């Protein structure tokens, strides 16, 4: 999948562009390159609809002169001179940030588990066989169940960063992912569930998420009547239901620049309790096999594992180099520096600030789902929500809809509810009575990084409005 010399070639490209920057007497420069290859299979209506492959890549150039930065990106190295000039012209009209310098070289230890050579040898035919196995498994679990959408894919990505400050780093990561939308359309009722899994390591041929999708499509059938108006209630959110809201609201709240600019609901609360006093938030940029982990962040600074909220108390925040320098220069904070939290959306964008592999943990003993239901007594299990992206990251307020939820009474599941609105303020709900499940699952994010979350029982602060 990945040419043997992919890393060498993009590293050489970075060197060539760096040399051009030197020839142009640019004060500081940083060149990033990405080069990705992959295969994918689309599934529709219970069959493989398409097989695809390909690759893409490019270079990004950041120049810094007198605290001013400019950026440009390109595909063809032959146009690097032009891109350098564009970046330099932009830097000239950018505001000067006192003290803003590109990071200098620091030793960065490798992070294990980011490359699985087994993935490199997966062929399109192997993926087709895996797709067949998944389709067969769904049929065998429930002959009414059909994979109506989704697919699977493998990828390998070579990346490199070179800078005038001595950073010269490159490497390869791999990924293997699957997502399936399973529907059961029978007896004038259609139910469905989307589940997915992804890893830097090769997944099993039929990952557990396939059975989970069938299970939720089955257990949301035959909705019961719920004759109540909107009411405040405990809600047990599965990891899959909770993570979209959490990732929309929490990662941006712990960005250093947003905190000091009063743009976070946790602004001015450093050292104060912001979560339930047994909860901690940890961002581990060095997590073995972490999907957002790497030895260096998006601007070459060594990554780290850092606790941001400890036993409910806000003790840290995320910083990249320029954001830190800018907030200090503008007098919003006395001292700040990068803590390895620069993230990039590829070669097409300069670094910004964000989390990597964010985990929420409890110092209390975690519980099985049955124990959480016993504790909840009356309430709902919510497994997916619609409209999480409409949550307000500035306030933490949200109002979403779920069609994948179960009514619970006396600690027992009564049955599915056809549809309900779910609203509240996530920051407030997480600061009250919260219990965590014992099965942490990795989820994607609406902002940056990946979320490592178990099922979460929120006893207060949420409101359900059943149809």
């Amino acid at each position, binding site marked *: 999948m990945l*040419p043997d010399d992919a890393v060498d070639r993009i590293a050489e490209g970075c060197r060539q562009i760096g040399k051009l920057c030197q020839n142009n007497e640019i004060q500081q420069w940083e060149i990033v390159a990405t*080069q990705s290859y992959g295969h994918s299979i689309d599934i*529709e*209506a*219970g*069959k*493989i*609809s*398409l*097989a*695809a*492959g*390909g*690759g*893409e890549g*490019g270079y990004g150039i950041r120049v810094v002169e007198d605290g001013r930065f400019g*950026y*440009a*990106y*390109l*595909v*063809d190295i*032959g146009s690097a001179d*032009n891109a350098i000039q*564009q970046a330099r012209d*932009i830097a000239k*009209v*950018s505001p000067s940030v006192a003290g803003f310098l590109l990071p200098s070289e620091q030793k960065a230890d490798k992070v294990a588990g980011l490359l699985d050579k087994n993935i490199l040898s997966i062929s399109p*035919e192997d993926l*087709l066989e895996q*797709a*067949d196995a998944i389709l067969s498994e769904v049929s065998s679990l429930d002959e009414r169940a059909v994979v*109506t959408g989704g697919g699977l894919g493998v990828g390998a990505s070579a990346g490199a960063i070179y800078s005038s400050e001595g950073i010269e780093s490159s490497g390869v990561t791999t990924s293997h992912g699957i997502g399936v939308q399973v*529907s059961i359309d029978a007896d004038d009722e*259609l139910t469905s569930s989307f589940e997915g899994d992804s890893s830097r390591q090769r997944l099993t041929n039929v990952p557990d998420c396939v059975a989970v999708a069938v299970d939720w499509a089955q257990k949301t059938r035959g909705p019961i009547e719920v004759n109540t108006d*909107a009411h405040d209630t405990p809600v047990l959110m599965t990891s899959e239901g909770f993570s979209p809201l959490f990732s929309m609201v929490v990662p941006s709240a712990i960005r250093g620049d947003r905190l000091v*600019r*009063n*743009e976070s*609901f946790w602004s001015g609360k450093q050292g104060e309790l912001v979560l339930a006093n047994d909860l901690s938030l940890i961002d581990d940029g060095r997590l073995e096999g972490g999907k957002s982990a790497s030895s260096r962040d998006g601007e070459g600074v060594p990554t780290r594992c850092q606790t941001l909220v400890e036993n409910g108390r806000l003790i840290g925040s995320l910083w990249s180099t320029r954001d830190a320098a800018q907030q200090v220069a503008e007098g919003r904070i006395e001292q700040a520096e990068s803590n390895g939290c620069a993230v990039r959306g590829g070669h097409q*964008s*300069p670094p910004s600030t964000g989390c990597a592999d964010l985990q929420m943990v409890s110092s209390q003993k975690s519980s099985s789902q049955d124990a959480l239901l016993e504790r909840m007594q009356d309430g709902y299990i919510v497994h997916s929500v*619609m*409209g999480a*992206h*409409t949550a*307000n990251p*500035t*306030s933490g307020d*949200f*109002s*979403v*809809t779920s*069609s994948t939820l179960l009514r619970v009474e006396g600690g027992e599941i009564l049955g599915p509810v056809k*549809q309900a*609105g779910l*609203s509240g303020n996530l920051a407030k709900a997480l600061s009250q009575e919260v219990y965590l499940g014992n099965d942490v699952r990795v989820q994607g994010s609406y902002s940056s990084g990946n979320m490592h979350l178990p099922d979460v029982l929120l006893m207060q602060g949420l*409101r359900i*409005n059943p*149809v």
Partner: protein
Amino acid sequence: MVMSASPTDEHRPSTGRYLDQSKIQAALDQAQELGASYAEVRLMAITDSSVALRDAKLERAIPGQEVGVTLRILADGAWGVHSTTDLISLPSQIESTVRLAKAVAARRSSKDKPVQLAEVPILEDEIHWKPKKDVRNTDLQTKIDHLKTLHDSAADDDSIISVTCGWSDEHLHTELMSSEGMNRVWSFQRSLINASVTGRDGDEVVSYRTRHGGEGGLEVIEQCDLGQLGESARIATLRLLKAERAPSGKLPLIADRDLTGVYIHEALGHPCEADLVAAGDSCLDGKLGQSIGNDIVTVVDDPTIRGGYGAHPIDDEGLDTREKKLIQNGVLTEYLNHRETAHHFGLEPNAGARAQDGLHHPLVRMSNTLIQGGTHNDIDELMEDIQYGVYACGSRGGQVDTGRGSFQFAAQEAWLIENGELTRPLKDVSVSGLTLQILKDVDGLTRDARLAAPGFCGKGQTVPVGDGGPTMRISQALVG
């Protein structure tokens, strides 16, 4: 090496084309010799720029150019696709992509219908929607000046703690050649400006977003009164600081043009996409020709509305775009389709194929979707017999479960309606419902339908869209 061989503008042949037509024609011929029933090469070159101002200071400006090309091959009734940024390597991928398509076909069971494409006119031409003011000739300072105008009016209050303004423009150039002899080139531009305003009063923090944009060049931005746009955003932000949480329950709802657009996009537009219908993932399966809504409801999707953010002259299978009438007086009259689904359902192709860029294959997508106007003169007429309800404005986005037919969309701000009048401002209003129910519950529309603020639609790929309509009344909606 994928990225090293892509030509840039400077390396384009004197024909003005990125694709070397003789080499691509030879590759398409080779695909047919290897057993492809259809082969297509589509290239998209995007010259773009984005600029962001934070608190009136330039935060970032990024000029860029992307060139991507996708080879799509239909062999034995199945698709194989190869996408790359390396144009020169494309001919060498023909054999493996035909093999891929055949491998997919070999896995089909006998009951699976092979993919076939509806017949379409085969055209060789160029269509260029020329902007009045080409964005590629707009210098950075001009963009910054416009952003500052927007910023200054949005930030003009002590309770406004932050204003971030953004600009994006793009020139899109597409070339498509197929084994059927289609050989088309088209281009157009899009421009967009936006602001995100954050206000704070003690522990209360709120935000409001505003956008203006459309198909076209700098003139799109110049046509907008940016001072007014910023002022409206500021006033809305300040109002949200004093707003109450919305009541929950089933209530009469009036939606402004923005929200009406998002509603019709989510609730009806997505379930009308024929690829979802064919996949068994649409609540509108089998309902063509049936009444699914109140007879005052007529909905079109029209990529030919110049200036709309979803406008484009040719779809990504090379078909001239045209208006699609999805609902006529409450009756479902048309799905959005591409050539594959048009053949599948035995329908006329209606040019609904769009791809995010040159590296993605086309899917069935919306463009500019709007409800046509009704008979009410204004919002006062819609409100006059509502005792207790909600008027919701501006969109924070929405989502739909097309199979179940349930949807959700969120408003930026709202008011309580009491005894036919707007009373208190509300915040965090979302609306959810079931497509087939809510379309019947639309019971009032003002006359003045037009596109609202530009948006983006995600379906695995992100494409710009326009939505809109008149002000709309729904007799009963689930408000949260």
